[in-house]
């Protein structure tokens, strides 16, 4: 009888333990990536996600060709600034960057204009274009005045943020 009595208590705790084990996933189910150094491979969820549709106001590329390699840049990464670590998957549509809520990448930054710059695909390349911003868009120390082709790894400064394309 004592055995059954204690056995039952053990059963109770086995149940509690199993429940907690199932919940462990809540703690360890997220992937934590350090933002220093290179950003790791994107999770499958984001890669499989539907492409961001044309930005409101950003000129959608008319009849974009079925996504060629485009120097194999696959995402836009914010590498400095308050949004550091944010990544956007690239698709066949343009990405509008600025403070306006309708932008693809909304910067909460007093130094950026509401529609600051856009990055759009053209043929095999991604082109950076400044949309007449007040404080300018810079590649290195060079202010971007004309649409400029962008290769992965080139850092673009917009206000307090730095964005770059990554493979």
């Amino acid at each position, binding site marked *: 009888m004592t055995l059954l009595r204690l056995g039952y*208590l053990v059963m109770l705790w086995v149940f509690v333990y199993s429940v907690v084990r199932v919940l462990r996933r809540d703690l360890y189910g997220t992937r934590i990536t350090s933002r220093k150094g290179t950003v790791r491979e994107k999770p499958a969820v984001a890669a499989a*996600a539907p492409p961001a549709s044309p930005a409101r106001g950003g000129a959608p590329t008319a009849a974009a060709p079925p996504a060629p390699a485009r120097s194999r840049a696959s995402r836009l990464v914010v590498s400095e600034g308050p949004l550091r670590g944010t990544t956007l998957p690239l698709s066949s549509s343009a990405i509008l960057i600025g403070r306006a809520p309708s932008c693809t990448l909304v910067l909460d930054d007093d130094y950026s204009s509401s529609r600051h710059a856009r990055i759009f695909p053209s043929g095999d390349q991604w082109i950076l274009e400044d949309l007449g911003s007040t404080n300018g868009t810079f590649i290195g120390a060079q202010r971007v005045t004309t649409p400029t082709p962008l290769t992965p790894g080139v850092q673009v400064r917009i206000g307090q943020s730095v964005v770059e394309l990554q493979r």
Partner: protein
Amino acid sequence: MATVEPGRVRSGRASELGLLVLALVLGVGAYALVGLATEGRVPGNFYVLTFGMAALGIGLHFVVRWRAPYADPVIVPIAVALNGLGLAMIYRLDLAEDLTGSSALSTRQLGWTALGMVAAAVVVWILRDHRTLRRYTYTAMVVGLVLVVLPLVPPLGKQINGARIWVGLGPFSLQPAEFAKIAFAVFFAGYLVTNRDTLTLAGRKVLGLQLPRVRDLGPIIVVWLASIAVLVLERDLGTSLLFFGLFVAMLYIATERISWVIIGLSLFAAGAALAATSFTHVQGRFDAWLNAFDSEVFNAAYGGSGQLVRGMFGMANGGLMGTGWGGGRPDLVPYASSDFIVASLGEELGLTGIIAILIMYLVLVERGMRIAIGTRDGFGKLLAGGLAFVVAWQCFVVVGGVTRVIPVTGLTMPFLAYGGSSLLANWIIVALLLRISDNARRPTPLPLRGTPAAAPRAHAAAPSEPVEPDAAPHAARDDGPSPDQQTEVIKVVDQ
């Protein structure tokens, strides 16, 4: 600085099935042990009961698997385990009091269990999206009020043990207040999600406390006053405490204003002081709590501390490991199967067992709160948070009362205690939590960015399309009002 990305969501249905089997073993094992300890053999209807419980539990599991495949995997097993434990204890008390057949409380409780689980399955089945409930915000308010008033209506209401909270329906007695709490949770959630900005931002600041404007509070004050007034008339302290707690907690969840908690607590203190001085039965409760071991109070014919102290003696008898199923004398405590079932379980399972049970409740509540964090729409957040709080609050009030932390009030321990209405209502709460958690855990078609998906700063990485934060796959057919707090803010600014 680091980014946090949710991993691949596992539906957890397999874990649920595994845990469910364990939970069933717990409940059925307890039943068998009771029989072995008291009569030396397993109870006659053991196999029927085992089969019935297993069929119900697994049936519910398959309904969840079919209709809410991403629902939280631990909620159903915990509810089944607690329900089974309660059933076994009620059966054990029936044996001690020689109740058999249809007069036995365990038979009725078994019926209610079946009904409750079927009701949960039906809710999960029929309610495809919890946001549909938001359309019935004010209907829920009216339903809640009607349910609360129902026992006062002469031919329906029944007065049992000094409290007029039952409604007789043929051979059954229902406590409508148990269902009213769900209705009020729906109402508060629906109301607060549209008005929370007004409640948060408008109004004067006094001594660092943001005071709301009276007109913003209208409907809530009306509901609250009405329920309190009626409950004072019905002389049911516990339920009034429950509604009050729900009200304050949901306001706090909605507005994030600590001032609400302070206002609530001071209102409560005033109410408690008033009740303690003016109502004799409340006075008696306080007396029995403060001077429980006074022999005069202990032996008082009505409203003494006999029940409370006997329960404590029982738990002391149980000690660390308990007396084992059927080994103690929990039947010496009046209402051992309803109000004092925690003391009965504490006696037979000991501190070790009762802590395991409390952890089950803790996990259940934690899941509710986690669902509230995970779900993407404000209404779901408030509803899940409110329902989880109701369970937590009931546990606190009951266990606190039994262990003499607070005065005893007549609330039921969810799932454990004898009481059909309570069981049914709690199974419905479980079904609602399952439904919301399915919505919360279902992978979205929206791209997940480096920022946490549901973070309030989500606008920082807003997708190009103006996607509603809660635009889940089937949101398109939800033609109810979209969560448009934005307009509320603008209104405030205009004034």
